[in-house]
C-alpha cells in the first residue's frame, strides 16, 4: 500500500485545481475584505488532500458494505436537521458547534453513491426490472427531497445527475429513458408552477431571453461575462481584477469564483484550469472503465457524473451559457463541506483505481 499506487493524473489535476482555488480565494478574500476566507479554504484543501490519500489507500468495498448503515444515519440526520438545525440565510442546511461545522447534504451525496454502487452490484443480472429502478429512484430521491425541504435547491439538484448516471449505467433501456424524459418535463412544469420562487423563475426567464430586464435579474450574468471577457489573454494580474476587486462581480467567492480566476489570469490561466478539470473528470471516467468490479465501475461512474455535471453547469453559468442556478464549482468555490464531499468522492475513485487488478 503506497501513495505511488494512486493515479498521478488524478492527483496532479487535483493539486493544480487546489492551487488555483487558493489563489482565487486569496484574491476574492481581498476584494471582500475577509482574509479568513483564503486561509480556511487552504486548510480545507489540505484536509481534502489528506482525505483523498487516506481514502485512496483504503478499500472502497469496505465502505460499500457500510453504506446501508451510513445511509440510514444520513437520512436520520437530514430529517432531524429540518427541525433542529439553526436557520441560516433562510435555510436549515448547516450544523455544527460554534463556527465549526458544515453542510451534511454535501457529504450524504457520497453515501448515496456508495449505496447505489452496492445496489447495482447486487442486482447485476437483472438488467431492467422495475423494482430495481424504483429502488434506485427512492434511494436518490429521499435525500433530495429532504435537502430540498431545508430548502437548498442548489445542492438538491446536484443529486439528479447521480440518479441519471446510476440509471444509465444500470442499463436502463431507451424506452424507459423516453418515459423518464416525459416525466421530467412534467415534473419541471409542476416545479415551475408550484415550487420555484418568483426570483428563481425570473432567473430562468432572464437566461432564456437576455433582453428581459437586462439591468435587474441579468445583472449577475452580465457582470460575470464582463469579468471573464476583460481577462483577455493573460489576465489583469492576481488581486488586480477590477470586476472582483471593486465588487461588481456577485457571489464571487462561491458561484462566480471562476470569473475571478478568469479575469485575473486571462485565457492562459482559465484555459489551464479548464484543462485541469477536464483531466480530472476524464480520468474519473477512465477509472470507472478500468474498475475491477461493477461496484467500482458504478461508484466511479456516479462520482464522475456528479462532478462533471456540477462543473459543467457552473462553468456554463459563469460563461453565460446557462441560467444562474446557485450551483458551485467543485474544489474552487469557497466551502469546506463541498471540498470534503468532493475529496471523499475522489478518494473512493483513487481506491477503485488502486484496486483495479485486485483478485479478492
Amino acid at each position, binding site marked *: 500500500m503506497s501513495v505511488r499506487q494512486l493515479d498521478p493524473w488524478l492527483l496532479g489535476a487535483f493539486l493544480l485545481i487546489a492551487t488555483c482555488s487558493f489563489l482565487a480565494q486569496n484574491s476574492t478574500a481581498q476584494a471582500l475584505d475577509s482574509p479568513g476566507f483564503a486561509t480556511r479554504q487552504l486548510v480545507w484543501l489540505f484536509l481534502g488532500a489528506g482525505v483523498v490519500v487516506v481514502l485512496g489507500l483504503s*478499500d472502497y468495498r469496505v465502505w*460499500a458494505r457500510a453504506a446501508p448503515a451510513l445511509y440510514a444515519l444520513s437520512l436520520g440526520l437530514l430529517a432531524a436537521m429540518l427541525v433542529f438545525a439553526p436557520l441560516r440565510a433562510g435555510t436549515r442546511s448547516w450544523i455544527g458547534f460554534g463556527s465549526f461545522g458544515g453542510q451534511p447534504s454535501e457529504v450524504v451525496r457520497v453515501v448515496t453513491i456508495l449505496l447505489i454502487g452496492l445496489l447495482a452490484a447486487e442486482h447485476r443480472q437483472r438488467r431492467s426490472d422495475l423494482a430495481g429502478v424504483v429502488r434506485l429512484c427512492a434511494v436518490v430521491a429521499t435525500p433530495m427531497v429532504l435537502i430540498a425541504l431545508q430548502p437548498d435547491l442548489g445542492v438538491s439538484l446536484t443529486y439528479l445527475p447521480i440518479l441519471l*448516471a446510476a440509471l444509465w449505467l444500470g442499463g436502463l433501456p431507451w424506452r424507459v429513458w423516453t418515459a423518464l424524459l416525459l416525466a421530467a418535463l412534467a415534473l419541471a412544469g409542476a416545479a415551475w408552477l408550484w415550487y420555484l420562487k418568483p426570483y428563481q423563475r425570473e432567473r430562468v426567464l432572464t437566461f432564456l431571453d437576455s433582453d428581459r430586464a437586462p439591468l435587474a435579474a441579468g445583472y449577475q450574468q452580465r457582470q460575470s461575462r464582463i469579468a471573464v471577457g*476583460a481577462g483577455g489573454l493573460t489576465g489583469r494580474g492576481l488581486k488586480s481584477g477590477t470586476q472582483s476587486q*471593486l465588487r461588481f462581480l456577485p457571489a464571487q467567492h462561491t458561484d462566480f469564483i471562476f470569473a475571478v480566476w478568469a479575469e485575473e489570469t486571462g*485565457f492562459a490561466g482559465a484555459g489551464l484550469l479548464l484543462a485541469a478539470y477536464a483531466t480530472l473528470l476524464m480520468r474519473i471516467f477512465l477509472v470507472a472503465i478500468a474498475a475491477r*468490479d461493477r461496484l467500482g465501475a458504478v461508484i466511479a*461512474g456516479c462520482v464522475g457524473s456528479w462532478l462533471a455535471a456540477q462543473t*459543467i453547469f457552473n462553468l456554463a453559468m459563469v*460563461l453565460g451559457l446557462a441560467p444562474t442556478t446557485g450551483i458551485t464549482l467543485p474544489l474552487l468555490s469557497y466551502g469546506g463541506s463541498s471540498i470534503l464531499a468532493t475529496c471523499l468522492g475522489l478518494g473512493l475513485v483513487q481506491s477503485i483505481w488502486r484496486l483495479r487488478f485486485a483478485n479478492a
Partner: protein
Amino acid sequence: MSFVRDDLRPVQRRTAILLLLCAAAFLILLGRLWTLQIIQGEKWQRLAESNRLRRLPLEAPRGEILDRHGEAIVNNRPAFQLLLFPEEIRNHEESTRFLVNLGIGDEATVRERVARALRASHLPSVIADNLTWAQMAAVAAHRSEFHEFEIHQTTRRSYPLGPSAAHLVGQLGEVGPEQLGRQDNLRPGQLVGRSGLEKAYQNVLGGTMGNLVVMVDALGRQVSKLSEEKPLPGKPLRTTIDAGLQRAAAAAMAGQVGAVVALDPHTGAVRALLSQPAFDPERFAGFVDHNYWRELLANSYKPLNNRALQGLYPPGSTIKPLFAAGALADGTRGPGDTVFCTGQVHIYGHPYRCWLAGGHGRVDVETALEVSCDSYFYYLARDAGLERLAAWARTLGLGRPTGIDLPGEVSGLVPSDEWSRRTRGHQWFAGETISVGIGQGPILATPVQLAVAYAALVNGGYLVRPHVVTAAATPPVPVGLPAAVLARVRAGMERVVNGDRGTARRLAALGAPRKAGKTGTSQVVRKRDGVKWRDLPWEQRHHALFVGYAPAQAPALVVAVVVEHGGDGGSVAAPIAGQILAHAFGDGVEVSGGENGAHEDSWAAPPPGAGNRRESP
C-alpha cells in the same frame, strides 16, 4: 470481498459515452472561453472600464457680465445639481419613482429627462438643478440603492438687475442636440446662452468644462481619484452698459410696453437697452421651468421678444429730422423755404391733415421740426418722391440691421415700388409717399435703428455700429451730410425741447444740460374724430415715440424710447426719455406726464369734418 467480476463491458461502454459527452461539453466551454476572452476581449475590457471609471464633468463657472464701471449685471452663486449616469441605472421604474418623489418634476418631466439622458449613453446628464438641502440629503441617503445619481456642486446665474436686464443679458437654456454635435466642449444638460449677451458671447462666457476621472466600486462609492482636468472658468465680459442707467430706464418705463435704447452717439457704445414687458431671468438660470416657458409663449405681450432689436414700429414724426436733413442736403428744400400750414393740405386731390387742427401758420424747416408740422413734410415728401425719401432713410441706417452685437436683430422696412410689387402685388401709390413723409404707412424701424440714425445726425454725420461689448473694427461710415445741414436739423431738434411751441417743451424744465430730440406718435388704427386717445382701448392707441439727446451742444447720449400704444410721444415717451437723460447727467428730477403741454396729435380739439391724413389716393 464478495464482489465478483462479471461482464462489465456494457457498463464500460456506457461510461465511455459519458466520457465523450463530458469531453464535448468541455470543448464547448473552451470555445466559449476563447470567444469571451480572446475574440471579444477588448469589448468586455471596455465595459469593465466603464464599470469602474466615472468621468465627472467639472462645470466651468460662466464669466460674469459687468457694466462699464465694473458693476455686475450678471454674476454667479453656488448651486447643486443632480447628475445621472445612464449606464448605472438598474431599475428604471424605481429610479423614476425616486426622482418623482424627490420632487424634481412630475412623472412625465422625469421620464423625458431620463430618456434624454439615456440617449447620451455613457456621459452623465444633469437631471435636476438647484437642489434643496432636503433633496441632497435624500439622494445621499439612498446612495446604495441608486448608484446612478451623483450630487455635483456648480454655480448658477444670479441677476442683480432682475428682469430689467433680461433681454440684454438673455436667457440660458440646455444645449440642444445639434449644437452638442457641433462643439465637443459641450455636454448634455449643460446650460448655454440662448439669447442676448449670453448667446452672443457664449465662447467668452462659457469657459471649458473640466473632467474628473474617479474609480468607483460596485456600490458607486468613490475609491480613488485617477485624474483631474480643471475647468477653465469663463472670462468676465465687460460691457458698455451703465447699470445705473439701465435701472433708471426700467424705472422710467415701469408698467409700459415698449423699448429703450440709449447709446453714445460717437462710438455706438450702448449704455442701456431695455424691452418691456420682461421675463424673470432667474427662472431660466437652471432647468427651464416648462410651465413658465409656456406661460411666456402664451402671453399676448410677447415678453420673450426683445423689442429694442425686434420691435417694428412706424417711426411717425421721429422720421422728420432724417427727411429734413436729406432735403436740405440735396437742395429739395432751402433753409429759408417755408410752408403755410392751415391745418390741412390738398395733394393729388386728397386732403391731408396736420395734427394741429388750426394750423401752424408759416413754418420753415426748424419750426416745422419744433412744432412737428405735418403740412411741411407732406409737401416735402411730394417734392422729394419715394425714392429719395427711401434713400435718405437708408443713408441713416434704416431698412437693414445696425449690426449690434446681440442676436435676433431685424431689418425693419424702407419701402420702394419694387418692394410694393413684390410683397403686396401692386404698384406704389403716390399718396402713400405723402404718409411716409411723416413716418406713417409702410415704413418700419426698430428702436435701435432710430437711436443709430439720431446718433449720426448729432455726432457730425457718422453711422456708428451700436455695440454692447465689442466696437466695430472699421471706423464709422460718414453719411455725407454737410455740417451746415446737420446744424440746422439739430437747431430744430433743440427747439422741440426748448422752443416756446416745442412738442417736448416740458423737458426744458429739467434744466441743464440742454436737451434736444424729436417726438413721434405713430398710428395703429385710423383716427376717429372726437375721441381722446386716453379713452381708446389700449391696443388701439398710438405708439408714443421720442428720440432725444443731451447735452444739446455736445451730445454724449442718445436715447430712443418707444411706448407701444402709449398714446402720445410728447406727453408719454418724452418724459421717459427725459428721466433717463436726467439720470445720465446727474440730476434726479422727475418729469411728470399728463396733459399739461402741447400734445402732438393730441385729439383734444379735432377739426370738424376734416378728412383722414392717411388716405391713399
